[in-house]
């Protein structure tokens, strides 16, 4: 006897396709949620992993800053209020990239900036670490030069946002906004370092904004530049928390840029204390 041919009815097929569709939808939602979750976490970790070593490096550099009244610093001051992204340059006891020849001193010139030049490093954070030779080693490679304006006069690239110098390195490509202010020994916060200069400063508070790699590619360089301008400068008339709060408010209110990208911007702030108070 011939065995009857087994087959699905049209109803069975429809039901099974419906169930399968449902299962696929549920699974895809699950995967999508998991992927979104991990993507968000990854973005955060991506930004964190950029900013953490940056701030750690800054902590080391600032803790080894040479703070003497006869040693120059290029910092935000009454001479240059540094609108937009800030720059900071100072002599430091940390080693740097030394010239190929000449006896190396234990000092270096360190500088931080957001590159504003029209290069591949545009709107990305850079660190200059120029190892200095001892005085009298060379007529071309500088030792530390004492006196005011020494950095500006002898290492101009350390003081502006566009000049190139081989000793600049990208330290945090995803950091696009850099702002700092001073906590004075009097307890006041200020955009000026005090009457005696840096010796009056108890701490530097640094705020940076970073955007993860995936979000950044959604923005053009001009949009990032625009974004930099929208995140306001430190206002000494406002409380210390105002800077990051206002930045976040600004970000939350942006509607003319992709939200996905803007939501990838993260803000960090850290105080670098100089020494025990007296």
């Amino acid at each position, binding site marked *: 006897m011939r065995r009857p041919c087994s087959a699905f009815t049209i109803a069975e097929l429809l039901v099974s396709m419906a169930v399968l569709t449902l299962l696929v939808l549920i*699974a895809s939602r699950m995967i999508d949620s998991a992927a979104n*979750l991990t993507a968000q976490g990854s973005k955060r970790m991506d930004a964190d992993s950029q900013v953490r070593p940056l701030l750690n490096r800054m*902590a080391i550099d600032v803790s080894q800053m040479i703070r*003497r009244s006869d*040693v120059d610093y290029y910092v935000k001051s009454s001479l240059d209020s540094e609108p937009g992204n800030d720059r900071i340059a100072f002599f430091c006891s940390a080693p740097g990239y030394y010239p190929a020849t000449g006896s190396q001193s234990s000092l270096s010139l360190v500088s931080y900036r957001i590159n504003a030049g029209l290069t591949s490093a545009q709107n990305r954070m850079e660190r200059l670490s120029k190892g200095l030779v001892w005085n009298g080693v060379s007529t071309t490679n500088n030792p530390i030069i004492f006196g005011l304006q020494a950095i500006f006069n002898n290492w101009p690239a350390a003081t502006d946002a566009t000049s190139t110098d081989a000793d600049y390195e990208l330290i945090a490509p995803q950091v696009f906004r850099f702002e700092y202010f001073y906590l004075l020994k009097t307890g006041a916060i200020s955009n000026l370092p005090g009457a005696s200069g840096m010796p009056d400063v108890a701490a530097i508070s640094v705020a940076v904004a970073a955007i993860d790699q995936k979000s950044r590619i959604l923005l053009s360089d001009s949009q990032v530049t625009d974004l930099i301008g929208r995140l306001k400068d430190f206002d000494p008339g406002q409380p210390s928390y105002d800077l990051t709060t206002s930045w976040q408010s600004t970000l939350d209110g942006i509607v003319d840029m992709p939200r996905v990208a803007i939501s990838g911007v993260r803000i960090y702030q850290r105080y670098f204390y100089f020494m025990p108070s007296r």
Partner: protein
Amino acid sequence: MTPRFSSTRRGAALLIVLAFLVILSGIVVAYLTRSSADRQLAHGSFNNVKADQLAKSAVELVVGDLKQEIAAGTPITSSNVVPQRSPKPAAGALPWTGIPNLIRRSVRSDGIASPAIPSRASAVNSTVDVSLNGRSVSLALWNAHYIVPKVSTGDDSPDPVTTGFVAPNYWAPDWVIVTRNGPTKFDTWTPSLADSTATNTEFAVGRYAFAIYDEGGLLDANVVGLPSPTPGITDVGRKGNVALADLTGMKYTPAGTTAAAGTISKIVGWRNYATVKASGTFPSLSPTPDPSPFMNYFLDRTNDFRTVANTVYLGRTDQAFVNRRELIEFFRSAGLSFNMLQFLGTFSRERNIPTFKAGTANLGGRFAIGNLGLLKDNPDATQNADIQKFFGLKWVVGTPGTGGTPPIPATPGHWQYVGKTGSTLQDKIPAFATDPEFFQLLNYAVYSTNSDDSSHIATTLSVGATIIDQYDDDTSSDPTTTTTSTMIEYAGGNWAVGMENVDPARASPSPAPSPFPSPAGMSPTPRPFIAGYAMLNRPFRNVGEFGYALRPEKTPPPQTINFATAASADAPILDLFTYNTAATRAGIVNLNTTNPAVFAALLKSANPTEAAPSPGVGLAAANNAAASPTPNATSGIIGHTTLGTLGQPALGRSDVARLVQATGTSIGSTEEQKETTARAIAEVSQTRTWGLFIDVIAQAGRYPPTAAGLEQFIVEGEKRYWLHIAIDRFTGEVIDQQLEAVEE
């Protein structure tokens, strides 16, 4: 009946489900892996920050304890003017054996004497007791600053001596355990240290250990050192600034090794590059052979030496050792002996305020010796105002004599003592509270009173006049009588007269020509010539040179201001006057240092006699104090500034007279020769500031629940700081400080 293909279909479903699971698991695992790595990084970063905060807190605690020691140490006596030492040299032991610079370290069962605060250290050692994850701090690492003398004198390893300490810990600091309740001392293991329950205040969060050294007792490498060719013996021998310390006098090994002048000159060539117009290439930089730029810079009365000169030469400036690590690296790069580092610091500060106190006076600073240069005959109105402000004197033009009957002798141009304000001749040294003029201060120094003093006006004005005559160069003489002697009129028709060995107005040979000057002589007359009275006739280079001035009231002449005996009433002068006028300055050395080599450098090349400048026969033989004890001038000084059987710490610069006596006749037997020590040391020493170097290592971490001993700590982060700090012992004020982060 079950269809033939049903099992296959079920397998397909399983595969699909498994595939989904694999994808999901992959996503989750990847996420967790990254999260875990990120967490570890964050944890590491957190521990570093925690260790940093712990280290800074430890520094604050140590400084706080020192401030408390100062606050509790009243009244200030020789037993508490210096920080208490732990360990202290055994009674009778020579104070410079072992580690002269070590003041104290964190140590268990800390028996440090009051008013010092014990260190709160627990019974766990930083060197011997290795942590659970294998961390310890070797003695060599503790000596990374090279302040402790080295064992191996022929290399640059920081291997420290252990002489005078007991194995196996030797002098290595013990850990101070920091619990949630702060630093707490534990003599034995306590399980609660590992109990992280939120309410447990004994849970350990970290630990720190520290050592404190006397950086103020070292020579400041930012100031000391002579160029080569060395300035002449007259320039160097008169001293006056710590830069004129001759470092070739320092024996920096027990075998007596000293540095060559050329070696020291390398430091000067690098440091004062622009000032001395150095030539050559690092490290063999040679200062210009002309010593004048060097001398002019360091003898600038107003320079505080806390900053470098603003001179630029070939686009380069002078340099400074901005921290101790730079000093060490300089020695490494320049190939200098690391043994010298035990005598060199990079941070020193002093308020230029005397410690001598009598009556109700409250002095805000020392009197500038350079003001004596204001006293010129026939001053103009502006000069007159300054002279009255600083000396209480007003100039009166002389009147010629007449040869009539009776003849009227000439009155020389002279000073009238009228006090800081007013124009009435004084019959007393007026009282003062805060800002005395020269004669008030001189009277205060010698007679210990700031009240009205009519008893000593004659003596004080006379001694002041002889000081003025020692200081002036005699190029200016009174046009009426040609006298160069200083003459001061005060109330009652009285006169105080200075002393010049050569005075054109002195009748010589006496009494012919008579009367002299013609036609009727003069009144008052210069003092008679005194054989053997040394005249400087130049601006003083240091406060010790006041010792050349005559005490006219003392017989037999010449007797001068006495800085050579411990009981001398003149000794406070050493504390009340100063060559350098900077309010806060660098380079001044702790008079209570326990480093013989430091005194050796200060003393070497000092000139024992003004008339015949020389390196000093007595000094050449005696002042090269060794790191090991030698019975000579410098060990005598050390012995007399150290607690124990040999003496007591100095309270102020006036104690230098006691130390001069301690040197005996090792430099020479005349008062001038003996006072070489006063001239070399008083101006460049101080006792009011504790200049300390605090070495702190802090470790963040915890005890695991399984820990069973104080050493079983898990180190999760470490930070080291060197704090250079200057604290005014007399006010408790932190004058200045520098925190140096130490990255290994």
